[in-house]
């Protein structure tokens, strides 16, 4: 079954829509769902043109397609366990919160908190992701615990904060403090990053772009050749300030002077 939701023109297009009901399993019984537009509860049909193609007997056979001006629709796919959501354009904040299975594919950019505290399934974002991509909630000890997030573009600050399991793959650059407080899982950044992995306790992070301002609490232990990529990386252990057993591999550390404490004072990101 394919459910196509195309946004209608809205009087106030900047009002956010809270759409945690848009998950595949909810459409098995039909598209009579409600979402909040600002503080008003609305029928899905008030905001979208709905087309349903075919039928399905189980939620994993349901595909939800979002078209049109979707940049301000928040919490799509929250607690999703199975099925597929395809978003043709941009998507609002908190897409795929607590998701435990299924697939979300985003054609455009994703706003902040993409795949926050995700447990399983996979998210592919063809554009850029905002801050706190694949991270934990503020104050919570565990962030993303499983599944896979792939971002073809860049990600904002605090990408994979509190990462505890699963895999995050950023093809572009990351902002400041990627992988901070990591406790497990794997973070791969193809582009540049600054101050990665502060207070890392476990897990692995590989960065193939230029890394500025590596924290002084990471201990250089080795260099290693990665045969599948044919590159040599510098291997760091850390964060030693907090019993760190994490591994940080960097292909291009900016320069050795970077590790001098005077150059590593906190400050705004350089990207």
């Amino acid at each position, binding site marked *: 079954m394919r459910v196509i939701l195309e946004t209608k023109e809205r009087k106030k297009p900047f009002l956010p829509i809270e759409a945690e009901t848009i998950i595949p399993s909810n459409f098995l019984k039909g598209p009579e769902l409600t979402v909040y537009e600002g503080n008003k509860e609305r029928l899905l049909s008030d905001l979208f043109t709905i087309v349903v193609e075919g039928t399905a007997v189980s939620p994993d056979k349901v595909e939800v397609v979002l078209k049109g001006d979707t940049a301000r629709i928040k919490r799509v796919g929250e607690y999703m366990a199975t099925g597929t959501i395809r978003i043709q354009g941009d998507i609002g904040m908190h897409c795929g919160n607590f998701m435990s299975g299924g697939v979300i594919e985003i054609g455009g950019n994703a706003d902040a908190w993409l795949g926050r505290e995700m447990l399983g399934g996979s998210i592919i974002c063809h554009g850029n992701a905002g801050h706190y991509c694949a991270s934990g*909630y*503020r*104050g*919570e*000890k565990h962030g993303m615990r499983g599944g896979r997030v792939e971002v073809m573009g860049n990600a904002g600050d605090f990408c994979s904060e509190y990462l505890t399991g699963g895999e995050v793959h950023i093809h572009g650059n990351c902002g400041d403090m990627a992988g901070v407080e990591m406790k497990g899982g794997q973070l791969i950044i193809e582009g540049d990053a600054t101050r990665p992995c502060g207070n890392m306790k476990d897990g692995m992070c590989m960065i193939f772009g230029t890394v500025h301002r590596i924290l002084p609490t990471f201990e250089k232990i080795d260099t290693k050749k990665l045969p599948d990529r044919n590159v040599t990386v510098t291997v760091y252990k850390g964060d030693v300030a*907090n*019993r760190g057993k994490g591994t940080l591999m960097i292909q291009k550390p900016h320069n050795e002077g970077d590790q001098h404490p005077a150059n590593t004072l906190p400050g705004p990101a350089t990207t």
Partner: protein
Amino acid sequence: MTELLVKNACVIDPLNRILMEVMDIPVRDGRIVESVSAGADIIDAKGCLTLPGGIDSHSHVCGTKVNFGRYMSPEDMRAGRTARRGKMHVTSGYYVPTTYGNSYRYSAMGYTTVLEGAMAPLEARHTHEEFTATPHQDMLANTLFDGNWAIMEAVRAKDVKKAAAIVAWTLSAVKGYSIKLTNPGGTEAWGWGEDVSSIHDAVPNFNVTPAEIITTMIEANELLHLPHSVHLHCNNLGKPGNYRTTLETFDLVPDTNNGRQTLYATHVQFHAYGGTTWRDISSKAEEIARAVNAKPQIVMDMGQIMFGRTMTMTADGPMEFNLYCLHHNKWSNHDVELETGSGIIPVLYSKKSLVNCVMWAIGLELALLTKNPFQCLLETDNPNGAPFVKYPEIIGLLMSKRYRDEECATLVDGTEQRTAICALDREMDWNEIAIMTRAGQAKALGIAAEGKGHFSKGAEADIAIYPIRCRDVDPATEYRKVIEAFRKTMYTIKRGRVVAREGDIIVEGANSTFWVNPVVPDDLNVANDPEFVKKFEEYYTVRMGNYPVQDVYLPRGKCIRTKAAL
């Protein structure tokens, strides 16, 4: 004039020795009276259990450190969210809820009076502002004196009258209710990175010992005729083997007051550990309970822990730092100049942890081994042991051996060897539960005279009607029904007004704050003492004139005047 008649109430009122009598309770203008006219509003209790409004004698719900707990736990604010509805404000949070969240949940459980466990005098304004925003409970504030420089100097000079005068001035300045000592001396030592490890260790730079602080403050408390006794959080909280310190402390306490205890020892569960390290921790509840049974001058409360997530917060900074070293989680520590400190850290009490299981058992053992329920009150040191919404479960555990056995079966191996919980077959009855949740508190806090905790004529009409008929239910087997009943009252009546009906809050609420003003002769008043004033101006970052809390912070303050015997 408003009148109310509660009909067919099955009343338990331990202070008046009424046990499950079906009777009517007439109320006029917020007080219980002899009779009301025929035009009175009528509430039919249908023979259900009716108790005086619940009183929590030690709970952290308002003030700077509770609020810092809120700052620190944005993740907690995702739990317990309720939308605005009728008269109810928005609430959120589970272990550190918003003030309205606290107030509504207490009200739903039939609680109408709460004592805030620790108010730093310097930060009293914040506490009083939050009291105003906890509208359904009358509030009282324990005022911290554990590291007060002026007090310690008076203790060193062995000048009890001076200490009493300082207490009197401070209590009336910050609108506090009673003396709280949290790890006496230890919080001051922590300002220098140290702690005290027994009641005979000297506090750095002051050369006084915790034992001297405790005995002097007990004496000062009685000289001032304060309604409540000294409220003590003993030294060495949460350290294996600390029961010796607790017993030594109890031995210091004289029996000098006929009306009530002379020491209220709070959350004693955290002070009843045997062993030497976390590996061999065991329960010493029997020793503690034996001491309390032999000393009518001591009242304690359980400090029960319940499994789950919560937040520990106390003025005991060094203890919280030790906890941080165990958990490596977020933490905070705070120094209140010249007075005290505080620390906050979130915890998870788990059934997989032997230490936590032993702690859980100790709290229950204390309650079950203390013969007189007036001497061991029910509380969790909210939120340190568990949020207060767990009280009904504790009531279930105390009333049913079967429930305890079922719970024990889910604990980690070894709990049985290190505690006596499985061997205790006492099951509390309704009267004992009523004592442990309101009558005992009213007596211990000295607010029975203010009309709290009983149904005598002229008492405040704080009434909780629970949807359960005592005679039809056997708590030993049907403990689930008991727990459900104590979770939500049919009616909670506060000063003659129905404030909650089946868990829903139906009025805005207007609480009072009780505070004490001990009257001290002019020649002893520290405000007239040039030396005290000079030191105050020299050491504090606030001026003495700006220190007292103005009346505007207590829109419905209720002052209790006492005449000091100085």
